[in-house]
């Protein structure tokens, strides 16, 4: 992979980071309310994976999915608008932080029930057997979700029917406030899909290049009609489980220890050593910052939901 592509990835990751930082501020200052799960620290996974997917492919994420939405190309403007109760929000205020959905961008949505997205993604993959598409479906979930029966059922279903789906387990070492290592006996989560007959691999989820390579390979195989693939992407989150999490459970110094390995720092260093100057890197950050700032200020200028969506609040409902 050349520097150009790396720079593009860096820009995408920084945009996600800055978007999330802005969301954090909005949430903390009370400009909107509602449970919010940030993606900081895990950007390489969404960015690397989505770089390997085509337009017609389908992505299903969890509540920790802002980064996935953006990596699929959903404009930050429509995400800010969604949070800030503005018309033009990606779900016109019905979804909120935990339920961003943008099928136009091949983003079939976040899901706030742990593990529940996996069977649905498998259904999207099932559809590809019949609808003459070569669609690959990717579903992301956390380490903790591995303990939810739905995920095992989904993986077995996909394995049994050779479905074109990529399971991405984003192992950030915590299931909410509890370390995953305390909630499993066998620490290697790839053994589970393997036991179902699904090829599985551990990937450094902080290395956007490695992520893209892994997913690209899987996509190529799957498009030529092989079955499901599983990746355990090792990563970390750089803040609380949700905005407001006091993180009492976090060992002192843990976040600092991620400083050099987290994906943005890592890629900056790599580009640095590939000859990209600090000034050039700062330039990228500055541009990304402008993009996000502009999206936010545009979102704030959109009319509030009071004006439109409230009128239709009962539409699409079947009591």
């Amino acid at each position, binding site marked *: 992979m050349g520097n150009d592509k790396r720079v593009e990835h860096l820009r995408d990751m920084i945009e996600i980071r800055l978007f999330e930082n802005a969301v954090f501020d909005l949430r903390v200052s009370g400009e909107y309310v509602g449970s919010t799960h940030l993606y900081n620290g895990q950007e390489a996974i969404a960015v690397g994976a989505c770089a390997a997917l085509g337009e017609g492919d*389908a992505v*299903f994420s969890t509540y920790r999915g802002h980064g996935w939405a953006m990596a699929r190309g959903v404009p930050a403007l429509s995400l800010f608008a969604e949070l800030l109760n503005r018309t033009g929000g990606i*779900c*016109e205020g*019905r*979804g909120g932080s935990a*339920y961003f*959905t*943008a*099928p*136009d961008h091949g983003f*079939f*949505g976040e*899901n706030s*029930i742990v593990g*529940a997205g*996996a*069977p*649905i*993604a*498998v*259904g*999207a*993959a*099932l*559809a*590809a*057997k*019949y*609808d003459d598409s070569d*669609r690959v*479906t990717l579903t992301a979930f956390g380490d903790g979700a591995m303990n939810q*029966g*739905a995920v095992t*059922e*989904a993986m*077995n*279903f996909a394995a*049994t*029917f050779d479905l074109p789906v990529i399971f991405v387990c984003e192992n950030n070492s915590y299931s909410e406030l509890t370390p995953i290592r305390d909630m499993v006996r066998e620490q290697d989560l790839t053994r589970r899909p393997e036991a179902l007959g699904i090829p599985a691999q551990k990937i450094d989820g902080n290395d956007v290049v490695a992520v893209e390579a892994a997913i690209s390979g899987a996509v190529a195989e799957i498009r030529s009609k092989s079955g499901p693939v599983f990746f355990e992407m090792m990563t970390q989150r750089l803040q609380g489980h949700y905005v407001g999490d006091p993180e009492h459970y976090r060992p002192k110094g843990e976040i600092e220890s991620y400083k050099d390995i987290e994906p943005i720092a890592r890629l900056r260093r790599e580009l640095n050593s590939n000859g990209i100057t600090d000034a050039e890197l700062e330039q990228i950050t500055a541009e990304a910052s402008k993009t996000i700032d502009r999206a936010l200020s545009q979102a704030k200028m959109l009319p509030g939901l009071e004006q439109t969506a409230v009128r239709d609040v009962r*539409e*699409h*409902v*079947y*009591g």
Partner: protein
Amino acid sequence: MVEQAGVNYGGAINAALRRCLAEDERTIFFGEDVGKPGGVFGVSKGLHAEFGNRVFDTPISETAMIGAGVGAAMMGMRPVVEIMWLDFAMVAFDQIVNQAANVRYVSNGKLSAPLTIRTQQGYLPGSCAQHAQNLEAFLLHVPGIRVCMPTTPQEAYDSMMSAHYCDDPVVVIENRGLYAGPKTEINIGAEPSEIGGSVLRREGSDITIVSWGPIISEVLAAGDQMPSRGIDAEIIEAVWLNPFDWNGLIRSVKKTRRLLVVHEANVTGGFGGEILARVVEWDIQVSHMRRLGLPDVVVPASPVLMNELRPSAESIVAAAVEAIWCRS
């Protein structure tokens, strides 16, 4: 093109599934044992042979099954998922309540989940507690899920067709005691109608009895016995519970001024309460309203015990007699 077919209840469903598969490429049909074996109740016999991998058996994974239905439907398919007993859907209830039901609303209409879940429920003699519940009230409390409970071959055919062409998730609740029932001539091939609707099973002037599911046969038998007690009952079968034919019900109750709801489900929290409450809230003047259902008890396996509990023609007649003679 309306044709006739001589089929029983199970055959009618088979015919509807066959037609959906034949005329709509988006149809896939899956569930435990529905493919090669043709279904535990034989309802899907021949479909796998005719439609190949569009009809298939699944692992015993209701969460994956319904989830796969939701996902496939979101991508534009028209999946039909069979859940062998509605009781078993409890292991996968999240996929109905939190997933299928939300798709259209939360995405602001950008997505929909035109999924049909075919299932069956109810107590027959000897059914154990975990294979005997009547759980329609759960589904009727979930905005976004449509529900019907056909009991005749024609109703079964029609409601399966309507469910299939409905753009939102529908749960079709059948009954295993009906599958092998008598053959009747039914119309097939007509344009599928919109979901919804009830059937006026008996006209009468003294009391409205609304019911659904196979207990309707007890209700009809009771209706036949009532003239000898001087009672002329009007009997409405609510084939569709969501959308419910409230207008039909109101018309009837305005005429009879008495209402009896009969369902097999446990009384407390059953849908009968909703019906009585609506009649009250709509200020329809009635002199008597009652519900008849299973008392609030787990279903015992022994038919000797179960028969003590379930509503019967006898208890329905008694309730009607009370409505007319003790309180008018």
